[in-house]
């Protein structure tokens, strides 16, 4: 049996460590700093008191770094968010056209509640696939806010972005003759000085909390960076580093 020379092992980098794995370790208060020997050895350091010091800027590179946390179990499918979005962002009333919608999950075998509603919208990913695949750069990541925006003049309607999006967050708007999507109400509210999105504003149950991940005193930041309650993202395996988080309670 070969003896491992622990002192001279090469750090193979953490780029390929899955997000879930990193998150699991973070919840234990550990940050993975390297993998060795083909992944059989993992080095980790305690994140106690320094949780966000090192890679904070790298993690939340935008300012404000807009984000949303969904308190999923509070959703009652009253759909006021959807109505507010339609009214604010002029979403046409045709099937399949939405910037935000609510999914329904039946769990007949569960003890207690048998149903969950899951509000969804564009996740404004840090590594968006839609902008990567757009052949005309009609959709792009805003350099300041990190919002994934549309330049409808450049959109040729090829719908490649729809294919690329793991979240089904895009639809073709016949009136605009371009793909339309949630932009956190950038043009209709945020750029005009409003502090939240129409959907978050309309929610009567406190499901959608809108905020800025670059501020450590922001409610969204505080929710995402605690360990008492689980926080997750949808489809983490897509590796797009979404900015919409989910939790319960």
């Amino acid at each position, binding site marked *: 049996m070969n003896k491992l020379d622990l002192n001279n092992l090469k750090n193979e980098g953490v780029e390929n460590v899955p997000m879930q794995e990193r998150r699991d370790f973070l919840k234990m208060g550990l940050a993975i700093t390297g993998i060795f020997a083909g992944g059989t050895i993992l080095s980790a350091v305690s994140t106690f008191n320094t949780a966000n010091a090192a890679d904070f800027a790298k993690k939340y590179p935008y300012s404000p770094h807009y984000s949303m946390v969904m308190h999923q179990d509070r*959703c009652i499918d009253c*759909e006021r968010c959807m109505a507010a979005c339609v009214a604010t962002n002029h979403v046409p009333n045709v099937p399949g056209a939405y910037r935000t919608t609510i999914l329904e999950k039946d769990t007949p075998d569960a003890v207690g509640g048998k149903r969950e509603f899951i509000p969804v919208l564009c996740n404004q990913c840090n590594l968006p696939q839609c902008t990567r695949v757009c052949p005309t750069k009609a959709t792009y990541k805003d350099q300041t806010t990190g919002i994934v925006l549309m330049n409808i003049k450049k959109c040729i309607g090829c719908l490649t972005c729809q294919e690329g999006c793991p979240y089904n967050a895009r639809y073709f708007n016949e009136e605009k003759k371009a793909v339309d999507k949630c932009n956190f109400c950038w043009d209709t509210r945020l750029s005009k000085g409003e502090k939240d999105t129409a959907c978050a504003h309309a929610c009567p149950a406190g499901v959608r909390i809108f905020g800025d991940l670059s501020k450590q005193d922001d409610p969204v930041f505080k929710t995402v960076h605690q360990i008492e309650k689980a926080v997750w993202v949808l489809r983490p395996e897509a590796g797009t580093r979404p900015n919409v988080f989910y939790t319960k309670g």
Partner: protein
Amino acid sequence: MTIRLITTVTALLALVTGLASAASYPEAPIVFDKPVTGVIFSHKVHMDKGLSCEMCHNRLFEMQAKKAQGNADFVMESLYQGKYCGACHNGSLAFAANTRCATCHIGVKGAKRLSDGGTQEETHEH
């Protein structure tokens, strides 16, 4: 004369049947639509748990479907204070009103399913 007698008998029968059904309950679930859309109440589910009419009527709810939603205080906050459903749904008699939201809140989707003739919501054991 005979026709008149038959009419009277029929009317009496209807009255008796009416009385009998008054002692039972509406079979179709009640779906409130204010202040938010799609909040279900199933008489069947509650009767099957052994509750009697007078436990809610008319102290908490009048015997007129959806009348309560006309009241300004028909909101979750009132339930937390023990009004309406909150009289039992307080965490000791029945699950607390601030838990299991989607059990009663069937939402726009659930309400639509029911109005389209589905019965799925009723089969949920609450």
